[in-house]
């Protein structure tokens, strides 16, 4: 396992929002999904994931409810609120702008 990449907080938030954009998930599934999709590059430490979830819920971007999992267990599911959906799209725009800007600078430096 490679050393997990350090994530700045804003990036973690947008990853969580993106992951939740398809369907509601519980914390474990969110971490797993991010790990899978990033091909094991992004490992979210639990110590960051749950505070981030609570913070996002507190800010009104996501909401939480207790539901049965497929395995029939009780778990806390998070889903996007409408405000969260708007937030995600503006964050994505920001991200595109930022990453292309960074790309420009890095290429120039070569």
């Amino acid at each position, binding site marked *: 396992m490679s050393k997990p990449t350090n994530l700045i907080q804003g990036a973690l938030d947008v990853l969580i929002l993106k992951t939740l954009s398809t369907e509601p998930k*519980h*914390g*474990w599934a969110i*971490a797993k999904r991010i790990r899978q999709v990033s091909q094991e590059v992004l490992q979210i*430490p*639990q*110590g960051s994931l*749950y*505070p*981030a*979830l*609570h*913070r996002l*819920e*507190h*800010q*009104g*971007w996501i*909401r939480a409810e*207790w539901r049965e999992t497929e395995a029939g*267990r*009780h*778990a*806390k599911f998070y889903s996007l*609120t*409408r*405000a969260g959906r708007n937030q995600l799209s503006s964050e994505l725009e920001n991200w595109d702008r930022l990453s292309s800007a960074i790309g420009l600078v890095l290429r120039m430096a070569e």
Partner: protein
Amino acid sequence: MRWPRILYMRRRSLFGRPRLEEEMTDELRYHLEEQIRENLNAGMPPDEARRTALEEIGGLDRVKEACRDSRGVTLVENAWRDLRYAWRVLARSPAFLAVAVLSLALSIGANTAIFSFLNAVLLKALPVPEPHRLAIVTRHNDQYGWDTSAFNYPMYRELARRMRAFSGVLAYWPMPVNLTAGNQAERISGELVSGSYFRVLGVRPAIGRLLTDDDDGAEGGHAVCVIGYRLWQERFGGDPRVLSMPILLNAKPFQIVGVSQPGFEGAALQSRHDVQVPMSMTELFMGEKRDTRGWSWMQIVARLAPGVSRTRATAELQAVGTQLDAAKLVPGIGPGANLWKLADGSQGVDWQRGQLRDPVLVLMAAVALLLVIACANMGSLLLARAARRRPEIAMRLALGAARGRIASQLLAESLLLAGIGGAAGWLLSLAMTRLLAAWLAAGSPGVVFRIAPDARVLVFTVAVSLCACLLYGLLPAVQSSRAELLDALKSKPAGGFDRPWARRVLVAAQVALSVVLLLGAGLLARTLRNLQTVDLGFRTERVLMLTVNPAMSGYNEGAARTFLSDLRQRIRRIPGVESVTAASQALLTGDMFAANVHVQGHAPHGEEPNHFFNLVSPDYFRTLGTPLLFGRDFTEADRKGSPPVAIVNQRFATHYWPSGSPLGQHFRWGGGIDVEIVGVVADAHYQNVRDPAPVTAYLPLAQRPFEQVTLMARTGGNPTRLMPLVREQVRALDPKLPVIRMTTLAGQRDADLSRERVLGFLSGLFSLLALLLACIGIYGITAYSVAARTHEVGIRLAMGARRSHVLGLFVREGVLLVALGVAIGVPIALAATRVLASLLFGLPPRDPVTFVACTALLALAGAAASLIPATRAAAQDPARALRHE
């Protein structure tokens, strides 16, 4: 969408704590179990699977704490914890708590009470829709140089017809009314109103209908009226059958057509008018026809059309008004241009704002100063506490407490004090405002102050409490959280003294501000004293006054005369009554009767004075104690049909006959009635205490028609004791005749001075509170010095220093602070007392006597305050003092 959710979350974070904690545990446990399951699936042995999972999660409690932090409630939670802690700390020093809460409650209460007044007098508006669109029409005449807001009825009709900038115009005049319902008569306050009145104001009926233009049609034909909601409730028990109940207004049958909406009590904010009668009935109440052109009497209020500014409306009014002036709508108005104006009408036709603006602002400034002084006092008390708690705070800092948390804990104490002080102050203010309103209203009958606190007052109190808290709490909090750790830890509790510069500055500031308050109060107190001792030209002691109006109860002139002479005789027979007289104008009530005077051969020189008149019975001057200088008093022989005579006062005599005797001279007054002067009396005040005696002429009451009349009786003993007997005599003559006013002349003088008395008393009270607080400050700082220098004093005493020397050492410190404060305060006071000029009487704003007396008082009080701890220092046993650590 997002905010409700956030608020919901916050509330849940705050109050749903136990459930939230449980959920958090469940959530993390689920994660942990999933991780373990995955590890097991990956082929790990059970304990390794569990260990790796726990490692990865990195400590459950740390994650939980991080979650809690990210919910962002710690701030509120900490604040709550700080407040509880602060309460425990404060409860441990009840003496400090008591002094702090008391001084805050008094100063915040005083601020709230005065603000309630300021709110009522300056800020509140009539309870009608969009009161700020109301404007009062006035007119300024160039030639005569006076403003008038009295107009005749045709002027109202023309303005209503021609003005485009007004969406409506109403005319109004207040009047006393005798209301008889069933067999009970009482005197209430009413209004003669134009038909447009209710429509323009935007008032709705509670039951029935309101008056319309139809009610204000042909003169005399509309005996209808609308009564106020409060009268309906109080007098008629809210009975809807009131609409068919026969009532009498001034002895004439009227029909009540409706009751106006609750809260509306007439067109003047600070008074209560219980009945509105259409102007078509003017003659019944005023003795003149409504449409009389030569009679300017009523006031006009306009409602500006939507979106029209007062400036724009004034411009149009000037144009229309000039046309109306040119059309000679008011006969007899002089040449010269009229400047038409619109005054703010949001409080309706009310003169309380003009009367009370200055006193209320002065009092507001005084209580604001008092609050600052109280804050300075609190600040210095808190600094002293902080100094005592330095070792404790240093210890906590050393143990790792954040400086911010320490500061916020100290601030919480201040906040708690402000909260308790503010709440207590609010309660106190309710009582204070009621007292204040009662006092002030005593001087102006019919005035009802709208002092009930509203949202604005509440916001004010909360804001003032918070500002106070910041003012006194910030410095100590910041100072002690900044404490140098090592220094603070080293110093032992008893030896933790420093040079309390901050506290000295605060005490000096307290003294300086107290100087300002004391001087202001001193000036106002001396003003009151001057007014109370001014020579009025008559003796106010032991005179009873009784005012009745037989004409309003349907008496014709002959019947009224018989009634008056019967009543005079009956009162004279009451044991203890020395003499009885009657006058058309009651002294010192603001009643006034003025007319032009023409003296043959007199060439006007300079500004011609106003001539005041009074119709009086024989014995008037003897009863009041006004010396008759020349000639004779009126007698019973001066009656209708006998030659018209007059008695003039000295100013009148010297104005027209500077040399030579006025006796036997004639003058013509009013419409040209010729009278002969038969006597000259000393000058006497007339309308009020403040204005000097005017040029006055007295005419026999028996020779002129009269309506309202005041009987005055000089008594051997306390006149109040005779009041029930006098009332009995009135009832014996006519049980249905209401007594309009029964008081004593001295009581009337006090009522006339009610504004000055309230101002003098309150400013005195506030300045004494300020003085007390300043003394507490001086006492505190001296006591602190004494404690700090106990050891040094012990050495001095042991070396043979005299006790008086030690005494002087500490008293000097207190006196120096006072001197510093006075040096700062006096220039401020010199500048500040200038605003009092309009309120003073008989002394300049820089009255040296007051200045010297007040500073001497302050110096004495300061010395006394420092003397107490200083005596303790000087009296101590040197041996013991030396052992003191």
